[in-house]
């Protein structure tokens, strides 16, 4: 049976198994279909009922003495008369008549002994509002102004409502007096207000949905993933079926992928049902006006789009849940592990749901956060550039892949299969570890996945605002790159007793492979440039890419040439090769086929260069570098290629003369960067590149037939 066949068998069985479970059905169907509408109807009704009842409630107003009581009574009476007169002039069915405020004549006025007593009563919420005047009489002449202190606890709904009603009373009194005074003097209303302000609200009708819904749906998707993830991993162990599964001739990765797909399916189905239920409740429950801020309709088309956006999120969450639950040996243990994970997910999710957070900077690659933001931006009607969507999807896929690999590394591990065979901490106890020639797939992917947002953060933190600080970014990178790309992986390898020399391929290659590295390094820029130009003509170049390239060029010209080459060619060549072609490719190669490992490592290498625009070219170079490394069983030819390639790029900025010698346009023309190279240059470049690859095509040592997974220790048998 082939690989996809086996996964399909596992998928079908697990899906049947999980759907026959009453608990899944309750969590997936009953909760969204019954509970959601109930909760929503209940809470919306409670809120509107409370709101109405506060408005209808007889008002109680506190005053500090008898004089003030008389003053308040007079104001209320005058207001009542005016309101009645106004009402008489209006059609009782008109909106204006319906919108008239309720008079306060049913208000009870309570007299307190002193201002202090009154304020204490308000603080103790014994009375919602207190009115204090400066002076003992109401306004009686045009020269006099009386200050009215409205005391209320504005943090409390009752206090706010009462305070507003009193403020409204004063406001209406003011308007009435102004009108009378203007009328007396025969002046128009514009005398007082030469300008009036009218705000025009252009927010999308679904703004409340846009702010809240992504977070709710994310919670529901997580909830949907939890139960099947636990049931299919820890449940397997707890019911004693894991041992018989593990003695089947099926690779663990197939089992995990099958299970992971089931969890994703259930999570997406759950999210879809939730979404449908929300939509139906809002639509048929008549709540669209309550929820949509300007009385709009339910955006059904957008709901479908959100569902699509939820799928990558469900994929990531399912992968994380499977990885976490694989570590657990019982349901209970799994539930304990899941709780902190949910909290950890809610933090970036919550930050993303904040109104001011935008899809930019670190948020583009923030796990979970970027998906919430994407859904929010789309729902709010913001225009999201396609490259941002790609960035979000690429990084999410990368994280999900790493999580699945980790799950496969953990699931079926001895210490997890046999609870009686030593404690869990045994799997971290160094003395129980066996030396291994290369890191596992899960170790290499997990470390790289954790490095990714860290590196992105470092790069944006160092990113200069001013040109003079741009060199600072280079120096900062010079310190941090060796630390994160080399020292950290080496530390991890040493702790887990992995052979550092073999992992990094630190061996002297054949002369043929040295030459291959040099030739590829010298020539790859020409086809790479053509690829860039081709891509530019199809997709266009984002302004940010152009600006950052220009800024980098400026900085490079300021640096001494030797420093520029050291920082921008040699350093990345050494550090990036050690991380991507050493640590990552070795790990992937430990249980993946040759080309799958090379392409996967190259894709990660591409993702690490952040600009989606450069992804294709970087990943393409990554494939070539990985191939060189695999064929020569040494990291050094790839380092040579990388260093030479970067140096060629630098020289085109520092010493542009050589470009003219070979007939390439001067870079004085800003468009030149996106122009095709002369055909002979492209042909020669491609020929040299192919020659280099041909030299590399003969492997260093005899190895198992091509295409076999390399389960033998080390890349070579030296």
């Amino acid at each position, binding site marked *: 049976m082939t690989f996809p066949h086996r996964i399909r068998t596992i998928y079908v*069985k697990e899906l049947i198994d999980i759907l026959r479970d009453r608990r899944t059905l309750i969590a997936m169907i009953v909760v969204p279909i019954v509970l959601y509408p109930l909760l929503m109807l209940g809470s919306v009704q409670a809120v509107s009922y409370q709101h109405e009842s506060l408005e209808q409630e007889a008002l109680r107003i506190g005053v500090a003495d008898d004089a003030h009581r008389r003053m308040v009574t007079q104001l209320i009476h005058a207001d009542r008369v005016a309101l009645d007169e106004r009402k008489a002039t209006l059609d009782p069915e008109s909106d204006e008549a319906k919108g008239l405020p309720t008079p306060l004549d049913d208000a009870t006025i309570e007299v307190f002994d002193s201002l202090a007593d009154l304020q204490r009563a308000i603080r103790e919420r014994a009375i919602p509002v207190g009115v204090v005047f400066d002076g003992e009489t109401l306004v009686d002449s045009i020269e006099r102004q009386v200050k009215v202190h409205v005391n209320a606890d504005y943090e409390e709904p009752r206090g706010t409502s009462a305070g507003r009603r009193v403020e409204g009373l004063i406001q209406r009194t003011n308007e009435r007096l102004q009108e009378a005074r203007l009328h007396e003097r025969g002046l128009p209303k514009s005398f007082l207000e030469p300008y009036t302000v009218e705000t025009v609200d252009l927010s999308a009708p679904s703004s409340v949905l846009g702010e809240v819904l992504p977070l709710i749906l994310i919670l529901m998707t997580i909830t949907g993933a939890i139960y099947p993830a636990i049931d299919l991993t820890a449940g397997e162990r707890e019911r004693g*079926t894991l041992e018989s599964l*593990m*003695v089947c*001739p099926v690779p663990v990765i197939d089992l995990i992928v099958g299970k992971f797909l089931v969890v994703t399916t259930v999570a997406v189905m759950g999210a879809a049902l939730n979404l449908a239920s929300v939509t139906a409740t809002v639509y048929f429950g008549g709540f669209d006006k309550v929820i949509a801020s300007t009385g709009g309709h339910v955006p059904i088309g957008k709901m479908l789009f959100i569902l699509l956006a939820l799928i990558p999120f469900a994929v990531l969450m399912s992968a994380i849940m499977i990885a976490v639950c694989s570590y657990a040996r019982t349901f209970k243990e799994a539930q304990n592990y899941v709780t902190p994970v949910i909290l950890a997910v809610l933090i970036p999710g919550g930050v993303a749901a904040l109104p001011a957070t935008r899809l930019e900077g670190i948020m583009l690659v923030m796990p979970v956060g970027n998906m919430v933001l994407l859904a929010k931006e789309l729902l709010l009607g913001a225009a999201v550039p396609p490259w941002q969507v790609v960035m979000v999807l690429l990084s999410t896929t990368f994280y999900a892949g790493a999580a699945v690999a980790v799950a496969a590394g953990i699931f079926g591990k001895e210490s997890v299969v046999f609870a009686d065979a030593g*404690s869990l901490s045994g799997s971290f106890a160094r003395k*129980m570890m066996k030396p291994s020639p290369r890191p596992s797939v899960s170790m290499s992917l997990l470390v790289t996945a954790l490095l990714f947002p860290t590196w992105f953060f470092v790069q944006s933190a160092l990113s200069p605002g001013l040109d003079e600080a741009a060199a600072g970014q280079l120096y900062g990178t010079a310190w941090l790159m060796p630390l994160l790309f080399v020292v950290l992986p080496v530390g991890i390898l040493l702790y887990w007793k992995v052979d550092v020399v073999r992992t990094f391929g630190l061996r002297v290659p054949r002369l043929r492979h040295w030459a291959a590295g040099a030739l590829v390094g010298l020539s790859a820029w020409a086809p790479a440039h053509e690829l860039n130009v081709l891509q530019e003509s199809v997709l266009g170049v984002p302004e940010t890419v152009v600006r950052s390239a220009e800024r980098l060029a400026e900085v490079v010209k300021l640096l001494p040439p030797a420093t520029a080459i050291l920082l921008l060619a040699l350093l990345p060549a050494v550090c990036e090769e050690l991380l991507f072609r050493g640590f990552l490719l070795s790990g992937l190669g430990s249980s993946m086929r040759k080309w799958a490992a090379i392409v996967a490592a190259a894709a990660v290498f591409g993702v690490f260069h952040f600009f989606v625009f450069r992804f294709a070219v970087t990943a393409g170079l990554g494939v070539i570098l990985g191939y060189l490394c695999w064929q020569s069983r040494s990291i050094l030819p790839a380092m040579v290629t990388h260093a030479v390639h970067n140096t060629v790029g630098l020289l085109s900025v520092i010493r542009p003369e050589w470009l003219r010698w070979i007939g390439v346009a001067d870079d004085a023309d800003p468009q030149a960067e996106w122009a095709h190279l002369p055909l002979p240059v492209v042909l020669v470049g491609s020929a040299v590149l192919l020659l280099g690859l041909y030299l590399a095509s003969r492997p260093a040592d005899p190895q198992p037939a091509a295409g076999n997974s390399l389960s033998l220790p080390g890349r070579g048998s030296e």
Partner: protein
Amino acid sequence: MEMVVADSLVKAFPTPDGGEKRAVDGLSFRVGQGQIYGLLGPNGAGKTTTLRMLSGLMAPTSGTATLAGFDVATQPQEVKRVLGFLTANTGLYQRLSARELLIYFAQLHRMDRAQAEARAEQLIAWLGIEDFAHLRCGALSTGQKQRVNIARALVADPPILVMDEPTLGLDVLSNRVILDFIKRERHAGKTIILSTHYLDEAETMCDQIGLLHDGRLVAEGDLESLRELSGEHRLSSIFLKLIHADRPIGAAGA
């Protein structure tokens, strides 16, 4: 031909105080084709750990084991293809029927759907599962479950069977069905490793017996040579004598 070879197997587990405990300590034995090898020993002797190492579920701390010539440490997938493994406390998928479960495992053993169904029906007939093959495993009795479990272990018709306490807690009828089935498989040329607490069962079933105590093999041979070695007749007495447990307490019933 030797189908199972264990050579100086050691399995050490970390203890909470930072030390290590050897559950299996330098165990070597060989089993020829068509033989039933009985692994006997008190609780904690290391029987289950040994069987788990043979099946590739646990990596030996040191030493090697091969099944049909495949090394359990370096060729786990090949080992799994020649092995049927019945664990002591195996669970079944509660929400699948016995038939669905057998078909699923047959498919995991690389059969296509039609082959898997045919093999499942064959085993259902041989082990007398017909009456409850359509029921979900969660609803089966202990004896019925164990029959399904044995069918599951045999689904790929492997040349080597490893059975950990196959008759634990069964009624007389199920016990009979299972023991007859094991004999039948032996006659068909299968190599079988059996671990059991029931000494009379071992007496009647096993060609070779290995007595395991504290992770070491204290004696090995057929029943006759063990009788000679110990001077006792019944296996239970032989057993107690050889592990020097015959003095403090009287002979324990088998």
